[in-house]
Every structure is written in structure tokens, then in C-alpha cells.
């Protein structure tokens, strides 16, 4: 039952009758006796901007790896717009529109920026199954790749090799590649990680510019960014979800403050 996506109102709780973009039920991961993710129930509404925060080692990246299929879950279920994708391998989930970026850049460093995005685009359209027609003849794909680069401000670097770019701009390529897959749900794993604070504005701009047809889950440590960007926040600790709510609710929550946020000035002021 697919109702049309309502505009996401900031601070909205679960809207009745709307199929969540992403839903996990009891998602678990065990590593040789260590429970890294302990039964997580997470719901992402369509078009949302949802942040996942928590101390290091809380299991956030592991959770993203489980959702994307990079790691196999020990238990639990996963739904993408109502479809049960628990058994689907990683590449099939991506094809269904569930796309993730990596905390440490996972790019094709010796290829140009354009070729990186082109790989994603040609993969999505099925062009990459063609063994005969030269890639240079796929002009529409090249145009699309370039348009994506333009949308994140990378059009000037299109023909430069990724390895030659500064780290902050490589991070943008990471996002551009994800966009090349036309995601319905986008999982961003610490997009500003490793980016010098002077270079993070273009990144934030790019994230801001993303459309509302896209549900975004973002893992972040930069609290300022989280409170600027997110409409809902989930707090994760020791493999479980501690709390979930609006930024205001989370920053006011005593348990969260004690466990994680600390009595920081700028948090208190929110």
C-alpha cells in the first residue's frame, strides 16, 4: 500500500497510514559472543532527515553495515518501503534504492571523478552489462554523471583523478557516487569525518540540496551539524537504541545528556 509521500514536517512523529521508507525490526549482530547490535527497531519516514548518534563503539557503523547488507545479520528483519529485504544480498539492496556511503572513502582512486560516478550510473541503468558498445558512445550517461557532479559542486574536477583531490572534495565524490544510484534511502556514514572544518561547508550545502524524495539516515559526531540538519535523532549506546525523538527532545533528555552529550554549552542553549 503506497500512499504518496507527505512533506516531512519537522518534529513529526510516526505519520499514520504511511509506509516507512526503512524499517528494522530486532536487527542483531553477534561477533563470536560479542553482541555488537542488540535488537534494533528503527523507523525512517519517507523524506526524513534522521540522525544516528552515539559514542564510539556504540554499533552505529555496524548497524549501517547490516542495513546495507555489507554484513550479514544474526537476526531480525529489514523492510524497504514495505518490502522485506532481509535475505537480499548487498548489491540487490542497492539496486532497490538503499544506498550507503562509507566513513572512510571507498572510491576508485586511480580513476577520474567522472568515471567514479559513471560506474554507479552505468550500473544502475544496466549499461554495465554491455560487453560490446564503447563507453564513450553512452553520451546520456556521461551527461547524467556530469549533472550529478554539478549538483555537488564538483564539475570542475570531473576529469581529475580522485587520488589527486583534497580529502574534503573526495568526500563529495563519495556522495556523488551514491547519488548516481538514484537512492530512495541514503545512509551517510559520518560524511564529514576526516574533513578539515574549513572544507565542510560545500559538503553541508550538498546535503542540504538533496531532495525530499530521499529519506536520509546520517551518522555523525559533529553535534552542531546534527542539530542543524536532523529532524529526528536516534541515540545508540552499546548496541541498542537508547532514545529517539526531535532534536529538542533529545537535547533535553537527562539520560542522553548524562550518557553522551555531556553538559556542553552549545547543546544546553538549544
Amino acid at each position, binding site marked *: 500500500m503506497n500512499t504518496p509521500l507527505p512533506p516531512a514536517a519537522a518534529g513529526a512523529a510516526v505519520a499514520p497510514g504511511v509506509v516507512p521508507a526503512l524499517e528494522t525490526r530486532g536487527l542483531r549482530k553477534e561477533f563470536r559472543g560479542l553482541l555488537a547490535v542488540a535488537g534494533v527497531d528503527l523507523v525512517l519516514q519517507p523524506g526524513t532527515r534522521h540522525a544516528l548518534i552515539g559514542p564510539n563503539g556504540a554499533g552505529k557503523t555496524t548497524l549501517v553495515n547490516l542495513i*546495507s*547488507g*555489507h554484513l550479514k545479520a544474526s537476526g531480525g528483519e529489514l523492510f524497504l518501503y514495505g518490502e522485506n529485504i532481509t535475505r537480499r*544480498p*548487498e*548489491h*540487490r539492496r*542497492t*539496486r532497490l534504492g538503499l*544506498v*550507503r556511503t*562509507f566513513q572512510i572513502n*571507498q*572510491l*576508485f*582512486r*586511480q*580513476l*577520474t571523478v*567522472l*568515471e567514479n560516478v*559513471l*560506474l*554507479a550510473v*552505468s*550500473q*544502475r541503468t544496466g*549499461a*554495465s*552489462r*554491455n*560487453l*560490446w*558498445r*564503447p*563507453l*564513450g*558512445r*553512452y*553520451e546520456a550517461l*556521461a*551527461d547524467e*554523471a*556530469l549533472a550529478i557532479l*554539478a549538483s555537488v559542486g564538483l*564539475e*570542475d574536477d*570531473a*576529469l581529475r583523478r580522485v587520488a589527486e583531490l583534497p580529502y574534503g572534495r573526495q568526500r563529495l565524490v563519495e556522495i556523488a*557516487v551514491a547519488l*548516481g*544510484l538514484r537512492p530512495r534511502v541514503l545512509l551517510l556514514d559520518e560524511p564529514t569525518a576526516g574533513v578539515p572544518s574549513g572544507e565542510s561547508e560545500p559538503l553541508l550545502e550538498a546535503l542540504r540540496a538533496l531532495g525530499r524524495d530521499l529519506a536520509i539516515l546520517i551518522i555523525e559526531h559533529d553535534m552542531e551539524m546534527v542539530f542543524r540538519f536532523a529532524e529526528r535523532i536516534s541515540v545508540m549506546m552499546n548496541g541498542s537504541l537508547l532514545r529517539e525523538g526531535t532534536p529538542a527532545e533529545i537535547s533535553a533528555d537527562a539520560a542522553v545528556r548524562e550518557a553522551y552529550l555531556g553538559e556542553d554549552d552549545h547543546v544546553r542553549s538549544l
Partner: protein
Amino acid sequence: MHGVDSRALQARAYLAQRHRWRLGEALPWALAIAAFFAFPNSVFVGTQVLILVLFALSLDLILGYAGIVTLGHAAFFGIGAYAAGGLSAHLGWNEPLSGLLFAGVCAGVIGVVSGAILLRYHGLALIMLTLAMGIMLQEAGNAWDSFTGGYDGLYGIKPAPLLGRFENDLYGYHYYWYALIVLLLMFLLSRRVVHSPFGASLLGIRENPARMPAIGCAVLWRKIVVYTLSAFMAGLAGGLFAQSNAYVTLEVFSFARSGTVLIVLILGGTGRLYGAFLGGAIYYLLEHNLAKLSPEFWQFGVGLVLLGVVSLRHNGLLGLQEHLLQRIRRRT
């Protein structure tokens, strides 16, 4: 608006020029043709060079483009050699072109079956599996010496004249063109595949195999496809070997042969198709002339040069050439 359009043209131009034919690409073929007329007494040697180049080209597809490291590629060469040789010596089917195709297909079939199993593995496990499989074939061939002739070799290979007219005479003239045409066809096929979107995905698999599933790519079947194509081509090389030499021994499966083709490709440069040509020609000709003088010095020299090439990290002679050209361009 205007600026974006010019960039779009630039991007398209960049992609388009990758598959365009360049003038320099005629060089190896011109040289191959010229060599035939310049060295009429060494034509047989020339045929063996072409066979080695084809073999190295097949390895480039999997190693240079898909990043699959194997120490047992001679397995496919050997299968092709014994398929073509056995067809003639045991079954009396002497038509060379169909025999060659049979050799390629046999190797290709083994390629797809072994690939479907082995290509799920990586690193040391894959290296050991390919190494062990190559040696297994050699041992199996030794045990089945009624077919293979063991280490004494398979005699009685009598290829009939090509197309009914061109026979493999003492000078080997016809077989030189036979090998050259086969090499050309396989090269054209490889070039097409490598410049296609499929070929681009192979580069992705080579550069970052972990990222590929995350962009929706099912890696395994692609590896199997290129592995099968590579096996087919190596099988053709083996078949040509059997037909041109009219003799095959178990040495075709040896680790030495797998190692040699690897060194040849590394020497010339991987991932460039032409590295096979450069490496193959240089290696074979040097070996043919120097190894006779002193096998120890030759072997030491190969080791030393290999160490040098790997230390330089410029990807063989072609890579070195590109590096030097870039440095010159930066100066000017």
C-alpha cells in the same frame, strides 16, 4: 548554462577518445608484418612470439583489468594444446581451424566451471588454489600418459593444410600469418570488451572490490565472464602451440609456464593490452638468444629485471614510458 555545456562536451570527448584508434596502435602490427619479410629464416620463432603474446594478452584481461591474481594460467594453455593435439593425434581430425576452435572451447568450458568455484576466493587462498590446480592437471596428465604421452610428449599431430591450401611447411610461413590473424581477431575482441561499460566495471572490481556491491554490482558473474574469455584465448594460444610445433609435452601445464607469462605481462605492463605485445616480444627474443649462451645468467637476469620492474612501481615498460612522457609534458 554555457559553462556546463562546454564541460559536458569535454567529458564526452574524454570518454570518447579512450576507444578511438590511435596512430601508434598500428605500430605492433606493422612491425609484425615487417618482421616476416625482414627475417625470413626466423619465421617459426616469430610464430612462437605471437603465441606467447596471445597467451599474455589473455592474462592481461583477468590480471590487468579485473585484478585476479592467478599462478595457474598455464592450465588453460595446456588444455588447449592437448585438445588440439589430441584431436589430431588420437582422433585423426586434422582440420586446423576447427581444431583450434575446439581447443579454445575446451579451455573456455574448464574456465567457466573452475571460475564459478575459484573466483569466490581471494588473496593467498586464490593464489594457492590456482597454483594447485595447474599442478594437478600436470600430474593428472602424467598419470594419463596413454593420452598425453607423459613427459615424452604427444607425437603424431598432423594438421591438415589451412583452408585446404596453406600447409605448415618447414619454413612455417603460412602458420605465421595464421597465428597473426588469430591474434588480431582476439585483440580486437579484447579491445572491444575492455572499452565497454562491462570493461569499466572490471576496472572498478580491480580498484575497489568492496565498493562494487555497494553500487549494485554483482561481482562474481563478471569475474567468471572475463575469466572464461581469458581461458578461451589461452586455449587458442595452446592450440596454436600444438599445431605449429606438431608436438606437445606436459610442460605446457607447468608452473614455469604460468610464471613466465606472468613475468612477460609485468615486464610489458598490465592493463594496457599492448603490454602483452611488448613484454612477449622482448622476453621471447631475449630468451631465445641469451639463454643459449648461459642459462644461469639468463635466469639471474630475468630475476634482476623483474625485481627492478616491480621496485619501480611504474607498471612495466609501458607504464614507465607513460611516466616519462608525463614528466616531459610537465616540464614543457
